[in-house]
């Protein structure tokens, strides 16, 4: 007997959208106590179907066909009042970004207690008591203190635990988790996945887990649904879908996931050193002054390494490890407190004025977010030419070069006349790469350059970067939190924690035989390792 049945569901998008329906012909069942993963890339409609179950579709988007049967009644036929009784009590929900999903002005305890209040349960005192018990159940450290905390005072993982506590308050029979670990670090992600798994077993709760990460799917799913452009292309048990996938789209997605060990590795230690970083230190001090003691964060603590010509070094670490600060300090977007950055015999860290400007073009950056890193009011031609013009290239030549660059990164030269918003995420990231190349740099710093992209797009962009590196003889620093990506593109890997370099070495060695316990814990937390082994066996046969 299934708990939830979705039959032939279609959800219409408002007029003028890129397709008439967000999702169509959606059919699936959810059994009690089952974890069902819905995977797909952005725009596949995976969140839409789950939101429809909650009756929480965005404005202008509505179901036009089919039924969602929960507990014998069709949810789509319910009034708003009836749906309100279902939300929170029978179906709980958690979201991707736990910071924005919590009210910043309310204490955590009050936000949990609110769930009981919404359904008219318990007295105010009992609500607080239950909130405390729930926080304990989701294993929040020091729950007595946490209950009085505001969301901004908790870490990302702790906030997501609060969200889970909130969703579980009334012991719902279904938990809908919409990309709940995407914004978290790997080690935190592993803990949250384990928590969801534990709670599922303890309470026999069914989970609809929406994700784009096949590693996560492999670790927790019982059954999997793969969606593409609003349609279900494949569904079945986790082994069937991941190891014996029938649909070409699924196969493409599965293949696009980089393995933890892959790619050709080279040893560049014979090549000349192009960038020599020595003792780089940056301390951030917040607050302090008149009366109070300042808070000191050592974002970079005596970081030293050499980058050889033609080499790619991956800088990996969790948020707050100092990896992005490192990249920014190298290009002098941040002033390092001490240390030297020697590039072709010049100390970048101490240059001033015209000398700094002249040397800056040799080291260029690609940013994480392809949406916010391009000026939305500037045409692509201007984005790609203004750097060159600033260095004295005549406008006409600079624009001609912009066209060349576009074809270099696999875009049509006509793109110069268009605005960034006319491109997809992957295309924008190509523009970002073209911009970095416009000044003929020797070194590229890619800061989480593929993290915001879907796996299939990610693979294309990584291929492009590898190809360009080869053709233009570039050296690269590749900053990422994703060990799989690092494994694929990097020759050497440098692991950072609390601003310190804890380990640096050839990629294979660091990944296969890590020396530092922190590196080991990072590797252990990567989801989907067992499945990767299994997949290798299947492919091998």
């Amino acid at each position, binding site marked *: 007997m299934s708990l939830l049945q979705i039959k032939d569901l279609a959800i219409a998008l408002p007029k003028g959208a890129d397709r008439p329906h967000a999702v169509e012909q959606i059919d699936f069942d959810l059994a009690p106590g089952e974890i069902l993963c819905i995977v797909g890339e952005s725009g596949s409609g995976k969140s839409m179907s789950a939101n429809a179950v909650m009756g929480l579709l965005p404005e202008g988007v509505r179901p036009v066909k089919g039924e969602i049967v929960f507990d014998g009644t069709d949810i789509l036929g319910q009034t708003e009042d009836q749906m309100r009784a279902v939300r929170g*009590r029978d179906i709980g929900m958690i979201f991707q970004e736990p910071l924005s999903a919590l009210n910043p002005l309310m204490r955590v305890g009050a936000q949990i207690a609110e769930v009981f209040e919404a359904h008219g349960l318990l007295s105010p005192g009992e609500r607080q008591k239950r909130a405390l018990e729930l926080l304990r159940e989701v294993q929040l450290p020091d729950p007595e203190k946490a209950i009085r905390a*505001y969301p901004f005072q908790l870490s990302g993982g702790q906030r997501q635990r609060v969200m889970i506590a909130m969703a579980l308050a009334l012991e719902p029979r279904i938990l809908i988790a919409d990309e709940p670990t995407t914004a978290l670090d790997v080690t935190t992600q592993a803990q949250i996945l384990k928590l969801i798994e534990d709670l599922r077993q303890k309470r026999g709760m069914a989970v609809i887990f929406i994700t784009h990460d096949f590693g996560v799917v492999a670790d927790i799913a019982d059954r999997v649904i793969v969606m593409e452009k609003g349609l279900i292309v494949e569904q079945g048990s986790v082994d069937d879908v991941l190891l014996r996938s029938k649909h070409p789209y699924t196969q493409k997605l599965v293949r696009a996931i980089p393995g933890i060990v892959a790619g050709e590795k080279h040893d560049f230690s014979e090549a000349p050193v192009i960038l020599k970083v020595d003792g780089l230190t940056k301390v951030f001090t917040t607050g302090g002054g008149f009366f109070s003691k300042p808070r000191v964060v050592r974002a970079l603590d005596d970081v030293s390494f050499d980058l050889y010509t033609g080499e790619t070094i991956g800088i990996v670490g969790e948020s707050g490890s100092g990896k992005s600060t490192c990249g920014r300090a190298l290009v002098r977007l941040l002033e390092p407190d001490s240390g030297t950055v020697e590039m072709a015999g010049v100390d970048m860290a101490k240059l001033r004025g015209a000398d700094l400007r002249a040397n800056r073009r040799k080291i260029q950056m690609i940013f994480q977010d392809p949406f916010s890193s391009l000026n939305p009011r500037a045409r692509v031609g201007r984005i790609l030419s203004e750097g060159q013009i600033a260095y004295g290239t005549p406008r006409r030549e600079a624009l001609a070069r912009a066209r060349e660059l576009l074809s270099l990164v696999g875009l049509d030269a006509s793109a110069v006349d268009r605005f960034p918003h006319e491109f997809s995420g992957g295309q924008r990231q190509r523009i970002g790469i073209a911009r970095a190349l416009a000044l003929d740099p020797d070194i590229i710093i890619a800061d989480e350059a593929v993290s915001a992209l879907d796996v299939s797009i990610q693979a294309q962009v990584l291929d492009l970067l590898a190809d360009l590196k080869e053709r233009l003889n570039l050296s690269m620093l590749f900053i990422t939190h994703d060990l799989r990506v690092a494994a694929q593109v990097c020759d050497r890997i440098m692991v950072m924690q609390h601003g310190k370099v804890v380990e640096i070495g050839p990629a294979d060695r660091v990944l296969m035989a890590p020396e530092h316990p922190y590196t080991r814990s990072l590797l252990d937390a990567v989801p989907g390792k067992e499945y990767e082994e299994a997949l290798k066996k299947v492919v091998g046969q």
Partner: protein
Amino acid sequence: MIRFILARLVKAVVILLAILVLNFTLIHMAPGDPAAVMAGEAGATDEQFLEDLRRRFGLDQPFLVQLWIYVKGAIQLDLGYSYRRGMPVAELLWDRLPATLLLTGTAFFISIILGVIAGVAAAARQGRWGDTIISTLALLFYATPLFWIALMSVLLFSVVLGWLPGFGYETVGANYTGIERVIDIGRHLILPATTLGLFFTAVYMRMTRASMLEVSRLDFVKTARAKGLKPRVIQRRHILRNALLPVITLAGLQAGQIVGGAVLTETVFAWPGIGRLMFEAINQRDYNVLLGVFFVSAAMVLLFNLITDIIYVLVDPRIRITQ
């Protein structure tokens, strides 16, 4: 918190002193000699008489000496003497301050309460006729010049309809006492306070509406809906509280003008407050009074900035006091 307030007060005193010096210097650079104006009004053009006047008021002293005497006095809250009115400036200001504070304070509360209520109402009816009516009215008040509204409201409510007194602070010669006097002042207050408050009502309304709509699209509102909360509760507890933050910033700005912002209204309605005093002082080159008004206005701006910052810390836990 107390340390923060103390530190800010120390800073405020320093800034106030700087303002004092700046104002004094600027006034001195302005053309027009108070002695000449006074002599002119007295009908005397005798050079000797002018010299006497200058000596009596200390205007013959070097600039720095005059500045020093003024600042030294101001520190002891002695803002000089108004020869035009024949009384100390501090006393004069003290006399006029209550009327101004009553007017601007009332206008402030009217505008913030009405503005926020209208903004919430408009946001709840986004795109429907209720929203259109409220927004159009707000735009009208926002765009119409204050003096015109003032004159028209006098014309309508006091000249044509005769409902409310059109000028003054209370009925002259009626000698009301107790509750009767309060009612009388209240009746005089309605027109100027409403006129003064209309513009800011419109500003608060627009701000609240935009802010409500923006917050209602945030993730935590969806979380609140997923809990099964009633729309009314979501609106009050989750949306409004967050939407009010930018309104507080604006209210702080308006509150800073609580002394100096009513010149026009006070002049039109013959309201015996600081604003009118300033207007008259300019015409009469009564520099000591003018400097005194500037001084009090500046002090109020600083005070309300501090109060706004304290309110911010109280309503938004994310804002920590960093000195």
